[in-house]
């Protein structure tokens, strides 16, 4: 992954005007101005294809899955399991047994923490995360540390937002049981060298979980090429619905893990003396899942693949380069996160204007950005900042959107003098 300059030149071009027509929400106005949506890193919008797929299912095919023999139940089961196969192909997993549907990235990480780590880690064992992680890839491991007595280690970054790879390698030892890292930093956009991180961890016998929430929407992810053991992501950042996400896990690891939640669908037989658990992936999917969400996610994957992930990566890389260049021309702007390898996100501050005030003024101009600590408070502390403003780009963003952002920042300067 990583849209380098050479890739940007070679990649096919995205027809953004056509793409924009696929997203009805982009037609609306905010505060009397056309919506400029620069918050896809928090949640992307949905194309008509996803809205239709969900509506079609809810209108014509809904019933519970893996139960009844009636026509609707079979249609729902087929659509749900079809979505699982769609996900498998999207990330190139070996088997649909390795695809667990969850609520989102957060639930996927918690599943691994409680079902993989908690039963087998003990005092003296170590978990490594990096300094730029989202709280969802910090707190579940802190909970495991409290529960088992194992220790959390933090691989440092530099001020540009790049992992200090040699420092990370120094932390690795036979005590390291698990390495949990972001593929792309949600606060800074840095792309981490996942393959190298995985290889170094495996050399010490450690298992690697990758938080791919910010990576999957922006480039082709191949879990086998990365070599990771677990990969977690959310549907709603990938132009799909909220409340659906995916945990990929290598089959032998998932087989070795106890169920996380108990209930219907995850069992083969139940008696008061002994219950036997279902096979993968059902073992980890207790209760009725988010059926329409999975179907919407499959439609979203069809959609982004129809645009071409290389074209998407190149398009967003151009916007990041443009936004970085244009913002740097504004006096008082600091770009936060200047890693050599970045995807889709530009975080910044403006001297004399708190990010929260910036957010309000930009919204007034119709420009939606995220402001705050981006659920990465340890990273903000390291950078010495209470908050930043963050523009994040998706398939539907244009050069005009960047111009609107720049103009709105001029307005902020005007208000604050």
């Amino acid at each position, binding site marked *: 992954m990583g849209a380098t300059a050479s890739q940007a030149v070679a990649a096919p071009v995205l027809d953004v005007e056509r793409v924009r027509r696929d997203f009805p929400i982009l037609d609306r106005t905010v*505060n009397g101005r056309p919506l400029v949506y620069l918050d896809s890193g928090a949640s992307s919008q949905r194309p008509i294809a996803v809205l239709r797929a969900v509506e079609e299912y809810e209108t014509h095919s809904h019933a519970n899955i893996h139960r009844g023999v009636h026509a609707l139940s079979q249609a729902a089961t087929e659509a749900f399991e079809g979505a699982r196969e769609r996900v498998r192909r999207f990330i190139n997993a070996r088997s649909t047994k390795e695809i667990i549907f969850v609520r989102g990235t957060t639930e996927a990480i918690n599943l691994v923490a409680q079902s993989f780590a908690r039963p087998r880690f003990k005092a003296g064992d170590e978990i490594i995360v990096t300094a730029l992680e989202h709280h969802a890839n910090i707190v579940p491991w802190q909970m495991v540390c409290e529960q088992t007595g194992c220790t959390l280690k933090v691989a440092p970054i530099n001020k540009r937002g790049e992992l200090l790879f040699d420092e990370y390698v120094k932390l690795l030892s036979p005590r390291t049981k698990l390495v949990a890292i972001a593929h792309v930093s949600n606060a800074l956009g840095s792309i981490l060298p996942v393959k190298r991180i995985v290889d170094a961890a495996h050399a010490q016998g450690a298992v690697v979980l990758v938080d791919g929430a910010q990576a999957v929407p922006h480039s082709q992810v191949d879990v086998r090429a990365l070599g990771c053991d677990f990969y977690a992501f959310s549907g709603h950042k990938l132009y799909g619905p909220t409340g659906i996400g995916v945990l990929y896990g290598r089959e032998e690891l998932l087989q070795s893990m106890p169920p996380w939640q108990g209930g219907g669908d995850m069992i083969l037989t139940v008696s008061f003396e002994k219950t036997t658990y279902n096979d993968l992936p059902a073992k980890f999917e207790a209760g009725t899942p988010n059926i329409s969400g999975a179907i919407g996610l499959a439609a979203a994957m069809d959609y982004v693949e129809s645009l071409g992930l290389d074209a998407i990566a190149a398009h967003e890389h151009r916007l990041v380069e443009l936004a970085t260049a244009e913002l740097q021309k504004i006096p008082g702007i600091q770009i936060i996160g200047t890693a050599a390898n970045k995807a889709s996100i530009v975080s910044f501050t403006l001297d004399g204007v*708190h990010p*929260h005030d910036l957010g*309000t003024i930009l919204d007034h101009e119709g420009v939606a950005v995220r402001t*705050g600590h981006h659920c990465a408070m340890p990273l903000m502390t390291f950078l010495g900042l*209470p908050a930043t403003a963050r523009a994040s780009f998706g398939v539907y963003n244009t050069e005009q959107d960047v111009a609107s952002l720049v103009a709105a920042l001029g307005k902020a300067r005007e*208000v*604050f003098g």
Partner: protein
Amino acid sequence: MDLKELYRDVILDHNKRPRNFGRLEPADSCADGHNPLCGDRLTVFLRMSGDRVEDIRFEGKGCAISTASASLMSEAIKGRDKAEIGTLFGKIHALLTQQNAVADPSLGKLAALSGVREYPARVKCASLCWHTLNAALERGADARNETPATVSTE
């Protein structure tokens, strides 16, 4: 709506040059306030004379609304007693949250905060300092030298 309704000159001025800014030593009471949503943090220090706030200072980092609100509050409550401050807080709360609320003349410069109610996401910025002040008042004089009380808007 005009942004100037939110960012009035009084607000911008108190953001740029907050009054009563800094630590108060010695203080009879202090409390920390934190708005996790935006990262605003402030500490309110009080010197009391019985029920009356003899002196107040605050320090911290926050957006223009939270900084200006704390600055305006510090001016407004200096020399007032707990009952008067309670009344003032009630009026401010109404001003920040009720549509069509008319600023009570007794609010003085605090009335400049009336634009905030059009921005529901920002109401907590303006009210953080008042909740923090309340926590400091409740701790009273016996709280000296202890870890400050903490209030959070979440």
